[in-house]
C-alpha cells in the first residue's frame, strides 16, 4: 500500500523568498498528521501545493496516488479541503451549502440528498439544516465546513487551521469527528497553532522557514529537541526564527 501523501524535494519560491524548501514527506494512510510551525514557516503553502491550488516551483508530490502537477483533475475528486476561512456561502442555508459542494463532486440527485442528510446527522447539524450559514457562530460554521469537505468521502482530508477562532468545546467535538474519520481510513493533514491539538496528532512534522526540521510522534519530537512539551519546542523554534529575522 502506497503512502497517502509523498513529496520529493517539494519547493515553492515567491520571488526570492523560499516559502517551502526541498520538503520530503511520507504520510501513511489513515493517520492524523499535524503540520506545525510558526507563522511563515510554509505550512499553508505546503497544503496549497498538495491540494493543487498552487504549482510547485520544483520537486514533486503525489496525494492519494495522484501527481499534484499532472493529475490535478483526478486529485481533486479524492481530496477534501477545509480552510480557516471555511469557504461557505453566508446567504445559503446549511443544507444548501452542503448540497452544492457535494454536487460538485458528483454526489447529487437522490443519493446525494441521502448522503447529505447522513452527514448532517453525523455532525449534529440536522436541526440547523435550514438556517442561513451567515447567522451561525464560528463553531457551527466549522462543522458545516467539515461537512462540505467530507460529503464525498475523500480518502485524504486537508484542514488548514480549522479551529482558529472556535471555542474549546467546539474544538473538542471537532477532534472527536476527526478521529472517527481517521478510524474509517481517511488520512487527515491538519495545520494548527494550538499545541494541545498538536499532541492529539498521531505524527507531527515541524516546519521552520520552509524546511522540515523534525518529524515523528509528538513524544519523539519533544525528546529530540530536549523539551518538556510540544509548546516548548514551538516557542524555542519561534525564538530561533525571530532571532534570525532581526
Amino acid at each position, binding site marked *: 500500500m502506497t503512502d497517502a501523501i509523498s513529496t520529493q524535494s517539494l519547493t515553492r519560491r515567491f520571488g526570492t523568498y523560499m516559502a517551502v524548501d526541498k520538503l520530503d514527506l511520507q504520510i501513511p494512510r489513515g493517520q492524523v498528521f499535524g503540520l506545525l510551525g510558526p507563522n511563515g514557516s510554509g505550512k499553508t503553502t505546503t497544503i496549497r501545493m498538495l*491540494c*493543487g*491550488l*498552487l*504549482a510547485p516551483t520544483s520537486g514533486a508530490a503525489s496525494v492519494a496516488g495522484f501527481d499534484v*502537477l499532472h493529475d*490535478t*483533475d483526478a486529485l*481533486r*475528486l479524492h*481530496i477534501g*479541503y477545509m*480552510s480557516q*476561512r*471555511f*469557504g*461557505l*456561502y*453566508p*446567504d*445559503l442555508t446549511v443544507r*444548501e451549502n452542503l448540497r*452544492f*459542494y457535494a*454536487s*460538485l*463532486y*458528483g454526489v*447529487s440527485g437522490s443519493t446525494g440528498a441521502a448522503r447529505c442528510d447522513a452527514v448532517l446527522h453525523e455532525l449534529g447539524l440536522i436541526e440547523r439544516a435550514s438556517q442561513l450559514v451567515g447567522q451561525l457562530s464560528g463553531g457551527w460554521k466549522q462543522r458545516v465546513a467539515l461537512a*462540505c469537505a467530507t460529503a464525498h468521502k475523500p480518502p485524504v482530508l486537508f484542514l488548514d487551521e480549522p479551529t482558529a477562532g472556535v471555542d474549546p468545546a467546539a474544538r473538542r467535538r471537532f477532534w472527536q469527528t476527526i478521529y472517527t474519520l481517521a478510524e474509517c481510513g481517511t488520512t487527515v493533514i491538519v495545520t494548527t497553532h494550538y499545541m494541545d491539538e498538536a499532541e492529539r496528532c498521531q505524527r507531527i512534522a515541524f516546519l521552520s522557514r520552509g524546511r522540515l526540521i523534525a518529524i515523528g510522534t509528538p513524544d519523539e519530537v519533544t525528546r529530540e529537541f530536549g523539551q518538556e512539551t510540544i509548546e516548548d519546542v514551538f516557542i524555542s523554534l519561534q525564538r530561533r526564527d525571530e532571532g534570525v529575522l532581526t
Partner: protein
Amino acid sequence: MRSQSLLRRIDGALIWPMVRKEFLQIRRDRLTLAMLIVIPAMYLVLFGYAVQSEVRHVPTVVYDESHTPESRHLVETMAQTQNFAIVGVVRSRQELATTIQLGRARAAIVVPPDFARSLKTGHVAHVQVIIDAADPMQSAAALSGARLAALVLPAKLDPASARHTPVIDVSVRPWYNPALRSSTYIVPGICGLLLTLSLGVIMAMAIVKEREEGTLEQLIVTPISKTSMLLGKMIPFVLIGYIQLTNVLILGKLFFNVPFRGSLLALYAIAGVFIAANLGVGLLISALSQTQNQAQQLATLMLIPSMLLSGFVFPREAMPVAAQWVGALVPLTYFLDATRGILLRGASFQALWRDVLVLSLMAAGTLALSINRFSKTAS
C-alpha cells in the same frame, strides 16, 4: 497548470449545480434583484419623458403657393394639432431657408401651387414639411403633427362626397439631421445602455464577492473547472439580462410607441451575444480586481466610453477618428447599430451579421481572457 484544451475543461454536468446555487443566492438578494428589474423601468420612463418634453408648439412658417381655401384649411388643421405654432408667412424658398437657418422658425409647411387642383381631381395632393431636425424632439413633434393633419383634413374638406376620398401626402424633409434621432431612436439605446450598466457590474461583483469570502478558493479545490465555474456564474445573469431587455421593450412599446419593425427573434438572438459580451467584460474586471471596491471603480471606468462613444448620445460619424476607434471597442456600439436597425428600419438578421460577429468575438475573447487570468491567479 492544466494542459487540456479549453473545450475539454467544460465539464458540462458541473455547470448546473453552479447555476442552481447562483439562482438561490440571487433569490435571497432581494434588493439587487429589485434594482435589476425596477431601475431599468425608472430609467426608461425618466429618460423617455425627458426626451419627449416640449414636443408641442414648434415655431413654424407657412409658404403657401396655392392660395386657396383648401390650403388655408390645411394649415389651420395642422395648427390645430398644437404641434405647430404658426409664427409667420414667407414668400419664397429663399426666405424660408433663411428663416430656418436663423432659427426664427424650426419648421415650415410648404403647400405647392397645384394642391387644391390635385385634391379636386382626385390626385394625390402633396404637402411638404421641412423640419430643422437638429433638435430631434421638435422634429418628431412636427412629423406626427403633419401626419395627423394629413389624416384628418380630407374628411373635413369633403364630408358629404363619397365619390372620391381626397388623398394628402405629407412628405417630411428633415434638415441637418437626416437620420431623425427621436425618442423612438433613444429607446433601443436605453435598452443597450441599461444592460451595459448593470450586467458588467453585477457579474464582476458576484465573482469578487466569492474571492473576498474565500469561497472562490474552495471552489477551485473542487473538481469543477474554471470554465464551468465562470459559465455557471454567467448563465443566471444572461437570464436577468433578457428580463431587463423584455422590460424595457414592453415599456418602450407602451409609453413611447417604439416600432417593432424587424424580427423580435433576431433582436433576442443579438441580445444574447451582447449580454454575453457584457458579462465577459464583467468577468475580466473581476479577474483584474481583488476587492469589490476595485471592481466597482474599474466598471465605472469602462462605462464612460460606452455612454459617450457608442453613438448612444452623439453620432459616431461626427467623432474624431481616435474616438471612433475607442467606440469600436465597446459592445454597446454594435448592439445600438443592430437594435436600431431591427426596431426602426426592420433590418433582417442577415443584414446585421457584422454586429453579431463582432459581439460574438468580444464575448468569446473576454471569456477566454478571464479564464486565462483566473488560472494564473490560482497557481
